[in-house]
C-alpha cells in the first residue's frame, strides 16, 4: 500500500472573505466574526458587573449593563468544558445579550472560507461552532455567537433576575 505524500493545506472553497477575531481560552484558539463583537474590554473595567443569583446555568455568574441593556456574562472556559483560568478580557457581543469572558485576543485576520463541521461531530459543538477555518496551517473552530446561551437559557436567566429584583423591592418595602 502506498503512503500518500505530505501536501500543503489548500481550501477547495472560495468564498467572500470574513474578518474574524482570534482569541484564546485556556490556551485553546478560537475565531469569532469581528462584526459580531461590539466591544472588547478588560475585566478590570467591569467594576459595575452585578452578580446574578442562580444555580441552573453555572457558566453565567454576572451581568453587565451596556447602553441600557443587560448582558449575561458567560465564562468561556465553563462553556467549552475547559479548565477554568482567570479571564482578562470580555467580548461584548452585538445583537445578542451575551458577553464572553476570554483569556487573550491574539489578533484579527481574514478567513476565506468556513468549512462545515464534519458529520462525525454530534455533540454540543454543533451549537458552539459555525464551522471550522484554516488559519496558517491551523484548524480553528469558528464560534457561533448564538451558541453561548439558548433561548431557554435566556428565559431562565431573565426569570432569575426578575426574581432577584422582586426580592430586593420586597426587602426595601420591609425596611421602610
Amino acid at each position, binding site marked *: 500500500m502506498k503512503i500518500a505524500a*505530505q501536501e500543503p493545506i489548500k481550501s477547495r472553497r472560495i468564498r467572500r472573505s470574513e474578518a474574524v477575531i482570534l482569541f484564546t481560552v485556556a490556551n485553546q484558539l478560537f475565531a469569532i466574526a469581528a462584526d459580531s463583537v461590539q466591544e472588547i474590554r478588560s475585566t478590570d473595567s467591569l467594576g459595575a458587573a452585578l452578580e446574578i443569583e442562580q444555580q441552573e446555568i453555572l*457558566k453565567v455568574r454576572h451581568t453587565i449593563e451596556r447602553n441600557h441593556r443587560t448582558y449575561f456574562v458567560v465564562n468561556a472556559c465553563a462553556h467549552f468544558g475547559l479548565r477554568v483560568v482567570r479571564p482578562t478580557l470580555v467580548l461584548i457581543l452585538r445583537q445578542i445579550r451575551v458577553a464572553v469572558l476570554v483569556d487573550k485576543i491574539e489578533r484579527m485576520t481574514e478567513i476565506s472560507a468556513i468549512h462545515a463541521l464534519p458529520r462525525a461531530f454530534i*455533540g454540543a459543538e454543533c451549537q458552539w461552532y459555525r464551522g471550522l477555518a484554516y488559519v496558517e496551517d491551523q484548524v480553528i473552530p469558528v464560534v457561533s455567537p448564538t451558541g453561548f446561551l439558548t433561548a431557554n437559557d435566556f428565559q431562565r436567566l431573565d426569570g432569575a433576575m426578575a426574581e432577584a429584583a422582586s426580592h430586593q423591592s420586597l426587602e426595601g418595602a420591609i425596611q421602610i
Partner: protein
Amino acid sequence: MSGSDNTNAKSYVLVQIGDRRFAMSAVTVSELAPPVRLHQFPQTSPLVAGVIVRRGRIVPVYDVSRILAGKNSPAHRFYLVASREFDSFSEPSAIPIDGECELVTAPIQPSDANSPNYISGRLTIGEENIEVLDLNALVTSAPAEPNEFGYADPRG
C-alpha cells in the same frame, strides 16, 4: 498481495491496531496518510479525537484503538482514511493505525456469533484469522464518555 484466489474473494486492507490486525473493505479505503498534525479543539463527540486535513478537506479522526486495543492511540501514527456512510452521504473519516498496511484478496467468512456488531466477518490469511471491521458500526458503538476536552454537559 496475498491470500487465496476465489470467485467470492474481495479486496481488503489489513491494518495494525495495537497488537492485532484487522481488515477493512478496500473499496471504502481512500488513502493511507502519513502522521500529519492532529488538530484538536473542544468538542464532546464520543470517539472523535480531532481532525486532520487531507486533500483540502477536513477529515474527522476516530480513535478506535480505545475500543479495539483498549487504550488511546499514541501520537504520530499513520491514518487510514476511509468512507463513512451516512443516510445519503459519505464522509471521509480517519482512524489512527500502527505502521504498515497490506492489501489482500480473500473470501469473507461469517463472524463468530458472539462477535461485536462492528465485526462484519473474518478472513483467513495463512494461519491467521483476521476480523473485518464495519467502520460505521465501529464508530457508533462507543459509549458516551468524556474525551480530552469534553464533558457530558459542559454548558451547565
